[in-house]
């Protein structure tokens, strides 16, 4: 019966949509009914854990346990039946291909946040001064709703080599230049992949920075202007310092995007022409190369790169809780 249910996906989905909420609500009602009958002093201690149980199970099975298992797996050989020490890591740091992927990720991590935050801040500041603010915001924000895969198709169309089809080359040739192979020309092709990310994520930075900007008191800015500060001084001496925590939040978010970047590279070049990145390399080692050990090591390297960001986030969270 289970078999038939999984074969009929639509039916299964409807059953899930109806049954899962009922089961979950039923679970909570059952928990409460049981706790009412349980000895009075047990209930307060037990209740939180029973409410947390479904979430903790999912977090344990899909995040905590796999992270530990992958770290262990990264020290094992291809078949996973023997420990090989740091061999997989040694392999990663000795191959030309993997080092190029590492270099490209460094490019992503530097350029993507720089461009996204810079442009997002520029738009947020400029848009605050015009009447058609919401129109500009909607247009720049829209790409964020679509997938990286769709964005990749959109930009492959833009980057098409034939100047009769590709918009970018049409502009280049109209200006008297020769058509450019945007996705093949090294090392610039990495920049053109990163620009796809910039197009998609600038709206994210803009929205958050714009909200931060509007939180700065107008009186404060006005007072500075009355004291004779010009617009640039107001921006550098008042707006920028007050916005710094918000900029840090946006930048860390974009850095994580850059570290994990996969979809754009997978769809646009599949890592060819020296554009590979760590996440795509990990996928290739696992599914094309059949090397789970190496693949696990790559995933651990990616994880280690994110640990500092995780630490910063937790510190920031603690500080905010202290204020609360």
């Amino acid at each position, binding site marked *: 019966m289970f078999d038939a249910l999984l074969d009929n996906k639509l039916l299964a989905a409807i059953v899930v949509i109806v049954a899962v909420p009922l089961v979950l609500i039923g679970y909570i009602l059952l928990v409460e009914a049981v706790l009412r009958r349980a000895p009075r002093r047990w209930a307060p201690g037990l209740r939180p854990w029973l409410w947390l149980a479904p979430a903790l199970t999912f977090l344990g099975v899909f995040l905590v346990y796999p992270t530990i298992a992958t770290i262990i797996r990264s020290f094992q050989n291809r078949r996973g039946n023997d420990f090989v020490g740091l061999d997989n890591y040694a392999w990663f740091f000795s191959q030309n291909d993997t080092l190029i992927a590492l270099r490209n990720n460094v490019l992503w991590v530097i350029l993507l946040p720089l461009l996204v935050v810079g442009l997002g801040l520029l738009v947020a500041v400029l848009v605050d001064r015009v009447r058609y603010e919401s129109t500009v915001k909607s247009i720049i924000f829209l790409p964020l*709703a679509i997938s990286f895969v769709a964005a990749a198709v959109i930009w492959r169309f833009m980057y098409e080599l034939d100047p009769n089809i590709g918009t970018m080359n049409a502009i280049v040739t109209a200006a008297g230049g020769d058509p450019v192979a945007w996705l093949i020309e090294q090392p610039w092709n990495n920049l053109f992949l990163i620009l796809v990310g910039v197009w998609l994520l600038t709206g994210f930075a803009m929205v958050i920075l714009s909200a931060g900007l509007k939180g700065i008191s107008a009186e404060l800015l006005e007072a500075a202007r009355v004291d004779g500060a010009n617009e640039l001084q107001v921006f550098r001496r008042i707006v920028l310092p007050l916005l710094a925590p918000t900029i840090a939040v946006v930048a860390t978010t974009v850095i994580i995007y850059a570290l994990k970047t996969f979809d754009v590279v997978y769809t646009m070049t599949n890592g060819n022409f020296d554009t590979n990145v760590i996440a795509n390399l990990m996928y290739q080692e696992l599914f094309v190369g059949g090397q789970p050990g190496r693949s696990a090591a790559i995933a651990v390297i990616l994880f280690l790169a994110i640990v500092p960001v995780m630490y910063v986030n937790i510190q920031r969270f603690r500080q905010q809780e202290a204020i609360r």
Partner: protein
Amino acid sequence: MTGAPIPAAQLADTGTRTRTAARRGPSLGRGVLHVSLIALMVIWAIPTIALLVASFRPASVSNTTGWWTAFTPPWQFTFENYEYVLSRGLDQAFLNSFIITVPATVLVVMIAAFAAYAFAWMEFPGRNVLFVLVVGLLVVPLQITLIPVLNFFRDFTPGGIEINGTMLAVWLAHTGYGLPFAIYLLRNYFGSLPREVFESAAIDGASPSTSFFRLALPMSVPALASLIIFQFLWVWNDLLVALVYLGGESSNHPLSVVLANLTTSFGGGWQYLTAAAFVSMIVPIIVFLSLQRYFVRGITGGAVKG
């Protein structure tokens, strides 16, 4: 996805605020300001417009002339590209995307709501440590979970059925991956509700489940709406999870995977590729245009998952 960002006061209004005259720059720069903003709008809109126009052009012109020539006579537009891609499996992929996305969203929101309520309004030892763990999990790259979870799906075969490659696998995986952000967002919102409401309800004899269903949930509709939109778009737009756990089971592939495969197999067939891309974008664009306010609030009110 990032932890604990923007001070609440700054988020008070994310919409447009009435500008004071002082916010306007000197009149000298106004022209430059308008020109640069219009240029930005054009640059941001053109790629999508190009795709949309090209998707309605017949193959004969689409692969030989630029999309911009469509605006001059002879006007040649057609629905054939859409008919073609939809009859070649994209209709199934469209349905699959819904079948994957809706249950994955329902599961996350409900399970996260219970946990968030416990974190916000119940006292227990280890509460802070556990929540810091959730904040830490927000940024864990899901790449590090792929191999063990894949093995788990291959080994865990209830009733002799392999879960790997089925919708169940993606539902479960997306639920696990979506939970840290969902718990984080809802716990912060629940925690900001007035304490007196819950205290007086408890004094009146309301059980925690009554307080949860009758008070906490109805009072948190904006946060729940943001979360639903967010999770929906995240799952709809996801490529990696579907690619890994659905594997070669092509009858279950959602739009993102089919589109990524088309990119390599269709080669220069721009008329089909552009139409297929637009089919994958239509639902997110509708969601975005109709619920932009909640979408923006979800982003600013706690950040974004990655």
